[in-house]
């Protein structure tokens, strides 16, 4: 199997001005690689929501996207406070975002459900006080175009 094409970027805590730029570069890369628009849309939603989670909750972190002809794997890692109850965090409408963030239209408890809806598989490994790693995979299986 060929080595994956990797896009990696750092996300700063509370940097709402730059938020979304990393996801934009992932989208541009997938377009350049000739991916199907529906796949690009799913990847854009996942990377954007993961990026915003790093900005709002994770204290910043790293977002890495690994692209092969078979799949797109999106890995978000932070050394933030961790998620005490992942099952609860996955529920639509549940959020721990502060009011100032909610007023901007974030923190509606839709981020993780949006990621899940657009992933073929999703795993969240989180330890309180240590950090969180999220892995979301989109299987291409003949629908992604050429890499």
């Amino acid at each position, binding site marked *: 199997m060929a080595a994956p094409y990797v896009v990696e970027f750092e996300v700063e805590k509370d940097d709402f001005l730059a938020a979304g*730029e990393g996801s*934009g570069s992932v989208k541009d890369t997938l377009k350049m690689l000739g991916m199907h628009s529906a796949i690009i849309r799913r990847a854009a939603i996942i990377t954007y929501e993961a990026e915003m989670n790093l900005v709002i909750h994770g204290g910043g972190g790293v977002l890495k996207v690994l692209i092969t002809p078979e799949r797109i794997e999106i890995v978000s890692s932070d050394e933030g406070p961790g998620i005490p109850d992942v099952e609860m965090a996955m529920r639509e409408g549940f959020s721990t975002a502060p009011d100032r963030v909610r007023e901007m239209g974030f923190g509606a408890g839709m981020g993780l459900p949006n990621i899940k809806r657009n992933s073929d598989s999703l795993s969240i490994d989180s330890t309180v006080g240590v950090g969180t790693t999220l892995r979301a995979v989109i299987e291409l299986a003949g629908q992604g175009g050429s890499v």
Partner: protein
Amino acid sequence: MKVSELLQALELEVHCAGNGEADVFCGVVGDLLSFVMGHAPEGATWVTIQNHVNVAAVAVLREIPLILLSDGRKPAPELVERCRSETLALASSPLSAFELCGKLYGLGLKG
């Protein structure tokens, strides 16, 4: 309908003309960014009261060519700047989101 036609048809304050040739078929209204991120249809115009720079990020990722700020909301300078650099159209209206959506529907845009 083209973005330029839509900007002319409504009484709007245009902050960025964007790509006037882009097609708009439908609309989405909402102030929760993750809702719009998850639900905006292709070729939508987006009606919102959110006026900060992150609106542009969502519009870019969802390929929304036209952002309409309702209820007299004015865009933050960073939003205008980002819309300019991303060639997104941005305009504001004194009308409420409800009234603005009514006019858009009347022009033939669907949900």
